[in-house]
Each structure stands twice: as structure tokens, then as C-alpha cells.
């Protein structure tokens, strides 16, 4: 029966085609349905977390978000660990200055949370810097550095300024770098660290410790300066007794709408807007919010600021940025006196009184449009002032202050200018 067989064959083939078509249709409808379900699903915000753990030489503290991946990458692997070690040695290296005895730790002393106790920093030649030495803490989450320059976004980039700057001189190595480099590269310990930190460096021992390598290592070390174990931190981790009753009351004042310290000194850094893995971009208003005019100057209400410290305007050229400086961290603030960008307030009490009055400008009775809108005067009773001070003291992380000693001597650098200057 060939005809019947042919008929049956073509019928089955046709049926198979119908079946396949139905299957294809079914698949298409399913896909369409899934796509629609996807579009219809509400856009709930989800945190951005790094999927791949970065093998860094250090671990990030509990209660802190992971830093930006590009920062974590600087500490990754055995090279990262070696760069940290090299950077630590360089940070405390007195030969890294024109006088052969001024290290980075001169202005950034570990026991003072990497400040120097002076109103304004003093360089290796005795020249005074117009601004106060800032604390070096939790820099892995700092989107910019220095008091007033938003273009300084990495520690390696920044390190060239203290090493080479001439106006004012800090470490005074401009024109002397080759000589200092050869001196350090002659040290076997430095050569060994260099080989581990920069194993693919083409120059070998004779070309060790280029300026880029030194600033990269200094950056790696400074990224490890993490303070996250103050009494406040221990309280947030569940230690009920970590804060004294006075400090606990001070915490409430710090975050209250009336006093409002936390409107600027926010988050785990107790500073301005921070950077972390998944943080909003540090641009526009977010960047602008990092710099505030706290009413220290413009005493005559006509824009008079000290010529050496005009503020953010020095870099942006915008009149509205006159008198604006970066919001500093308040971690370890009890050991970083004197205060403000120019060290013009000697004590924490003076700082509290400054803010309670709404700034010097308000004290003089002159209105200043430039002063930050958050500078609202407030009143504190004597007890409240003590409570607020107690809270600020609870931000001191003793283990952090003790952790970073001079490698050679085992002792922290002493405060004050270098002897003989």
C-alpha cells in the first residue's frame, strides 16, 4: 500500500510540524510572559555588594561597608602586603626629607591619630604650612584628600605634594629625589622590600624606589590606618557598658536636631560623604556637601578671608566656595587638638562653643551669606556640654593609637618640631 503509506507519512510529518509549531509558540509565549513579569516586578532597591571577595592583606572592620573595589585592589595579594610593609618603613623614614631627619610621621604622629599637635604644620626647613595637619584615619573610604582640594583623589597622587612641594616646603625633596632614592636603594632592607612589592619592576635593584613606587607604597600603608574600635564602636557592636551614661547622653545630643553635629559628621567615618563599594558617585552636590563654611572668617561680612586660606575657591574659582573646607573626621578627635583647618581653636570646648554660637561671624553680629546653612546656633546646659564632650572622647580608639609604632625604635614619634629646627 504505497499510497496509504505516503498519506500516513505526510500526515504524521504535518502533525509533527503542527506540534513543533505549537511548542515553539509555547516557548515564545513563555519568554514573553517572563519578560513581562520582569518588567512588571517592582524596582526594589538592592544593595551593591562586590560578588568576588578581594584577597586583601587586611580585613575590613565589622560595621563598615567594603571600600571601593579599586581601593581594595591596591592592597591585594602578596604584592599588596609587601607594599604595605614598604610603605610603613618609608612613612617613618627620616631620610625622606631634605634635613635627613623629618619623616611623614613628624606631622602625622600615630599617638595623636596621625596629627602633630600644632596649629599649623611645620616643614623640614622650618617653613610653616597655612593649614593644620589632618588626621590619617579610615582613608580607604575617603573620596578626596586635603582640606580644600577636590582634585586630590588618591594618596599616591597626594604624596608628591609633601615630598616635593616648594610653596611651602614640607619635606623639601624637589631636585633632590635622585640622591635620596640612591641612598635608600643602597639599603638592603629596602631592596628586599622593593623586590617583593614590585616584582615586575624592570629596573632591578639599581633602579629601585622610583617616585611612583614610593608614593604607591606610602598609599598602601596609609590605607591600612583603620580606626574602628573606639568605645562608640564597641557600643554599636552590642557593648552596653562601652559608653558611660554621660557619653550615651552626648550621643543623643550629637544626633539631635537641636545640636545637629551629625548633619555634617556622618556615618562610620564621622566625616563628610564617604566612598564605599556601591556608594553614590562623588560628584555634584555630594562633592560640594563635603566642604563647608563654618563661619570662622568673613568677619566683616564682605568676604574677608585670610589670603593663605581662602578655601575651596582656591581650586574651583567659584565665589560661593570661599571659606569652604572639607568636613574632617571626628574619630579620635579628643587627641587631635588644635582644631579647624587652621588650628585656630585650641580645645574641643572651644569648638563646641564656636558651633553653639553659630560661628565667629554670628558672634560679631555680621550676617554672612557664605556661612553654611547648617550653622544654626544652639544652647547647651553645663551638663549637656559635658555630655557632648564625653561622647566626643568616646570616639578615641586607643588600640588604633597604639598600633602604629616607629619600626626602628618601637616608640611613636614625639610631638613638636624636629630638634634643631
Amino acid at each position: 500500500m504505497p499510497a496509504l503509506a505516503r498519506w500516513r507519512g505526510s500526515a504524521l510529518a504535518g502533525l509533527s510540524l503542527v506540534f513543533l509549531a505549537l511548542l515553539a509558540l509555547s516557548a515564545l509565549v513563555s519568554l514573553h510572559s517572563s519578560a513581562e513579569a520582569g518588567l512588571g516586578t517592582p524596582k526594589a532597591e538592592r544593595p551593591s555588594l562586590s560578588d568576588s571577595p578581594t584577597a586583601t592583606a587586611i580585613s575590613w572592620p565589622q560595621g563598615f561597608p567594603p571600600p571601593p573595589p579599586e581601593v581594595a585592589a591596591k592592597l591585594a595579594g602578596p604584592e599588596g602586603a609587601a607594599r604595605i610593609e614598604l610603605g610603613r618603613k618609608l612613612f617613618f623614614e627620616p631620610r625622606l626629607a631634605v634635613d635627613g631627619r623629618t619623616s611623614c610621621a613628624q606631622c602625622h604622629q600615630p599617638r595623636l591619630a596621625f596629627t602633630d599637635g600644632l596649629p599649623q604644620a611645620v616643614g623640614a626647613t622650618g617653613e610653616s604650612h597655612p593649614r593644620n595637619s589632618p588626621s590619617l584615619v579610615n582613608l580607604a573610604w575617603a573620596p578626596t584628600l586635603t582640606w580644600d582640594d577636590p582634585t586630590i583623589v588618591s594618596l599616591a597622587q597626594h604624596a608628591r605634594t609633601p615630598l616635593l612641594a616648594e610653596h611651602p616646603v614640607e619635606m623639601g625633596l624637589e631636585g633632590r629625589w635622585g640622591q635620596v632614592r640612591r641612598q635608600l636603594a643602597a639599603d638592603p632592607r629596602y631592596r628586599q622590600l622593593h623586590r617583593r612589592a614590585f616584582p615586575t619592576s624592570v629596573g632591578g635593584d639599581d633602579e629601585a624606589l622610583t617616585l611612583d613606587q614610593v608614593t604607591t607604597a606610602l598609599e598602601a600603608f596609609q590605607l591600612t590606618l583603620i580606626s574602628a574600635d573606639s568605645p562608640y564602636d564597641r557600643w554599636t557592636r552590642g557593648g552596653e557598658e562601652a559608653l558611660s551614661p554621660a557619653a550615651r547622653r552626648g550621643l543623643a545630643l550629637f544626633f539631635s536636631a537641636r545640636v545637629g553635629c551629625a548633619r555634617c559628621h556622618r556615618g562610620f567615618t564621622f566625616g563628610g560623604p564617604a566612598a564605599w563599594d556601591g556608594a553614590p558617585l562623588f560628584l555634584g552636590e555630594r562633592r560640594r556637601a563635603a566642604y563647608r563654611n563654618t563661619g570662622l572668617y568673613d568677619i566683616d561680612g564682605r568676604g574677608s578671608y585670610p589670603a593663605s586660606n581662602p578655601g575651596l575657591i582656591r581650586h574651583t574659582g567659584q565665589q560661593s566656595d570661599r571659606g569652604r573646607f572639607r568636613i574632617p573626621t571626628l574619630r579620635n578627635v579628643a587627641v587631635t587638638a588644635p582644631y579647624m583647618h587652621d588650628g585656630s581653636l585650641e580645645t574641643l570646648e572651644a569648638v563646641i562653643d564656636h558651633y553653639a554660637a553659630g560661628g565667629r561671624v554670628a558672634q560679631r553680629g555680621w550676617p554672612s551669606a557664605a556661612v553654611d546653612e547648617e550653622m544654626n546656633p544652639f544652647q547647651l546646659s553645663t551638663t549637656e556640654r559635658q555630655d557632648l564632650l564625653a561622647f566626643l572622647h568616646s570616639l578615641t580608639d586607643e588600640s588604633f593609637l597604639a598600633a602604629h609604632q616607629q619600626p626602628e625604635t618601637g616608640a611613636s614619634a614625639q610631638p613638636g618640631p624636629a630638634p634643631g629646627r
Partner: protein
Amino acid sequence: MKIPNASSIPSTLASTLALLCLLALTLAAPALAAGSKKADPVDEAAKAYNKGVEQLADGNLDRARKSFEKALDKREDFAEAHNNLGYALRKLGEENWDAAEEHYNRALELNPELAQAYHYRGVLHVLRGDEAAAKADHAKLSELKPELADQLMEVLATGSEPADGAGVAGEWSP
């Protein structure tokens, strides 16, 4: 080889055809049914949820509660809807706080990285005087979404929500 007689061929063919069509329809039926928007519970849940978010923003807590409940009727595993229902319930009065907490817990069971749920559950803990539990939520939130952790710390530190609840409902993205 045995050849089937001519009379049996049409009936065999018809049976095969019927079976294949039935199979094809069985396979295609769920997809075809899903193609209808009205019948899609996921889509309906999303619609009710988005409506609830709008109602929350307008301050209509009770209507928002109903919308979120409707969303969960359609899709029980909707973490965001559990979170928002928890919030609406908590704001509707202390008698709802236990139910609110259950919804926050369910939201976090479904999505342990839903930062907002740690925030709002933390606020509830503060209002109940359970500082330790609030701090645990704050610690988790600090790692997930630091800007929300700041808001929770403000509540933790001062013991109360900001009077106007500013920024609370704004965190949802309908």
C-alpha cells in the same frame, strides 16, 4: 510485516492526532495562560504594590496596608511588599507592632540583603526599647547601605523618629 487493514488506519491516525494535540495544548496552556496580564499573579502583585507605595507617599496608611496585603495575596514571597506592609502596620498603631515585626522578619527571610527592612525593623526595636536588637540591625545596615544606617543611628541615638518621618517612604522605588 503486518499491514493494518484500511478501516483501522483513520481511527489510529485520529487517535494519534488527538493525543499529540492534547500534548501540545498541555505544554502550551500554562504559557498561553501566562500571556494574559490580568491572570498573572506576579504582575497583579506588582501593580498592587506600586499602588501601595503611592498611597504611603500620600500618607494613606490604611489604604497602603490593604494594597500591600493584596500584593501578598497574589505573591506571598514578595519581600518588598512584606517590608512595606510592616512599615504601614507599625505606623498604624502600637497594636500592630507584633504583626509588623513578623512582616519585617519574613521580608528578610526572603531577601537577607533588603536594607530597608533592617532600617524599619531597627526603628521598631528602638520604639520598643530593645536597643540591642536595633544595634544588630544597624550593624548589618552599615555594611549594606551606610546612608540608611545613618538614619537608623539617628533614631537609635535620640530614641525617636524624626517628627515628620522625612525620607522614610522615599526610599522605596515603585
